[in-house]
């Protein structure tokens, strides 16, 4: 029935009907709240009350006049660094498990297992792994004759790396599956043709695999950066921001401001600033990736 319509009309119908619903959902549950957030950032709303006052840029002045608020961003660097390594490892295992290998089904499940584990379990588990006196990690290191007194979650200089490594443990398999799927989309005749031309494995990787999954790598990096800047649940559960604030993150500060200090307006302003910061970091990243590629 539809096929009798001219191609142009069909195309229009398809585009509109296929795009409309996802777009509507996106606008309702992402952009409408974001606009509200911007509006609230100019008010002194406490988060509950039916009334609020318009206070102009006062919240923004406060965000920028308080050096403590921006100081916490340096804690996010660890998540960023570990995130990059995580992606490299994920690509490595995706390639290994995409090839011929004994027990690859088993390893594919195994490496993905941490992602299946419930978040509550992850936090609980690592509380025991990193415990200084009774922890399984220090126990293991002690048995190996290495230091067994390290305070993994209590040392200011690397507490963020400890936390970020949990993210690595949990999400590497997730990234790996995405890369595996991307590898599957590469037509296999490309590799066959390359083999006939005498290309070695590295050349195949460099000239076929990488360019073909470039978009997905870019996306994963994007998600890594966003995730690094917006991380909060791991430090929230495992260290509560400690020792003495060394692992506090920006989103933790936002939540505290909104729900503990009853200052939803200021928290909204902080969210907007976070949003802008993420966009800035991503633009810089894009600029450098473009510059090289």
């Amino acid at each position, binding site marked *: 029935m539809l096929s009798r319509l001219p191609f142009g009309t069909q195309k229009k119908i398809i585009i509109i009907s296929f795009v409309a619903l996802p777009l509507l959902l996106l606008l*309702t549950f992402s952009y409408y709240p974001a606009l509200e957030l911007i509006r609230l950032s100019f008010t002194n709303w406490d988060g509950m009350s039916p009334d609020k006052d318009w206070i102009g840029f006062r919240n923004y002045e406060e965000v920028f006049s308080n050096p403590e608020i921006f100081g916490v961003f340096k804690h996010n660097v660890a998540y960023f660094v570990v995130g990059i390594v995580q992606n490299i490892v994920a690509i490595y295992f995706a390639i290994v498990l995409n090839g011929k290998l004994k027990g690859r089904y088993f390893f594919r499940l195994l490496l993905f297992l941490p992602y299946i584990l419930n978040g509550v379990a992850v936090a609980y588990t690592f509380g025991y792994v990193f415990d200084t006196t009774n922890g399984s990690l220090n126990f293991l290191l002690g048995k190996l004759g290495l230091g067994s007194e390290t305070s993994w979650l*209590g040392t200011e200089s690397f507490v963020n790396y400890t936390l970020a490594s949990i993210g690595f443990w949990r999400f590497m398999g997730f990234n790996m599956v995405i890369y595996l799927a991307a590898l599957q989309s590469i037509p296999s005749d490309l590799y066959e043709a390359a083999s006939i031309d005498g290309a070695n494995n590295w050349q195949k990787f460099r000239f076929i695999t990488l360019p073909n999954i470039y978009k997905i790598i870019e996306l994963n990096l994007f998600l890594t950066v966003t995730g690094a800047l917006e991380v909060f649940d791991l430090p929230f559960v495992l260290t509560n921001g400690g020792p003495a604030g060394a692992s506090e993150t920006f989103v933790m500060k936002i939540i*505290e401001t909104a729900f503990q200090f009853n200052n939803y307006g200021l928290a909204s302003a902080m969210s907007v600033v976070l949003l802008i910061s993420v966009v800035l970091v991503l633009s810089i990243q894009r600029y450098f990736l473009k510059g090289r590629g």
Partner: protein
Amino acid sequence: MKKAVSLLLVSILMLTMLAACGKDSKDDPKPADTGKETTEKTTTPEETTAGGEELKGKVVFLTNRTDMVGKEYKEYKERFEEKYPGVTIEFEGILDYEKNSKIRIATGKFPDVMLIGPGIPNSDFPKYFAPLDDIQFTGDISFKTLKAFENKMYGVSSGSSTVGIVYNKKAFEKAGITAVPKTLDEFYAAAQKLKDAGIVPLASNFKDKWPLDAWIYDVPTMIGGVSDHQNKRADSDAPYTLDGVYGQSWSILRTLYEKGLLEKDVNSTNWENSKKDVAQGKFGMYLLGNWVINQVIENGAASEDVGFFPFPSDNSGTVKAPLNPDWFYAVNKDGNVAAAKAFVKWMIEESGFEDFAGLIPTLKDKESKLAQLAEFNGYNPQYIEAGPPNDTATAIANQAQIDQGRVVQEFVLSKDPQSILDKYNKLWANAKKNVVK
């Protein structure tokens, strides 16, 4: 305008969605709000008389005790509905109560009975809650004035607790401690003996922050002999001083830390495991509320091995103990008010919740079933009741964004505690200028 547009968008969306998944929604025969509608009809006529047989409708209680859902609450429901056949009670449990309940309140529609903690300023109560002065309790209740505004009571405490040293008697025996310490110096000495016997003297659970509350609210109360120190901060530009109640209280914790009388690594403590350790005598003591006693017993200690004595905050030999409220029941002013009040009354008088939770009953003449409290009272502590908060002090603290748990952590860990106090006093003074004009 924006709202209207988005609402329109949402409605279109919804129609499409419901059409697409209509099959599945039959799982849920009643629309979510039927209960509320019947509710509104029944509120007005019986507003004044709480109790009585004519109560009707549904009451929803939003609780933080997710562990009691489907267990104790099931039994509460049966007993309550037997007494009030016209009322249906539903228990909804949520986690992260302060935050999630605020999100609920913000929408203007929230369950009939809520719990309120320190998060909502007293002056805001009339916006959300109904006054509860007309509930006829069988006796006098504690903390009538804490959640009150303009002489009306909006919250009833679900139970009270005091704070002191919860200790393992076997561990004390093993360390050769024959009598509980009555002065601060004796306390340090006892802790040292525990340490010498290979026992961690005091489980601070430093890392988790909330267990430090005792050092922020209760020890200063004991030291100063009055409970209004948090409010008094509003009158000062430098509320945190070394010789003030906070400095003195935190210095005790700092001393314990420096002498190695806390956990081996205070930045890596494990709350769940500490209960097992206290129960087994690997750890000697807690400075916490009496509610923790039942939890230690649940973790394997025999009740007779768990003791409780007042914390000696100085060397005077007279001991003091704070008396604190727990969460307060509050009633949604637009909900099923009459039946909700009956439920609050029932929770206080008949549910037995305070014994389950290990709290002191809110009814003043009701005896607590907690054996350890008798021991505690045997030391004749002078009880100091918590008073109502002062909205100005709260407003300044919120404006200054001072998280006192973190202040204590920094104070204890820092090489120069005075500099930490200076830092927060400065924040306080700046915020005070903005709040008090």
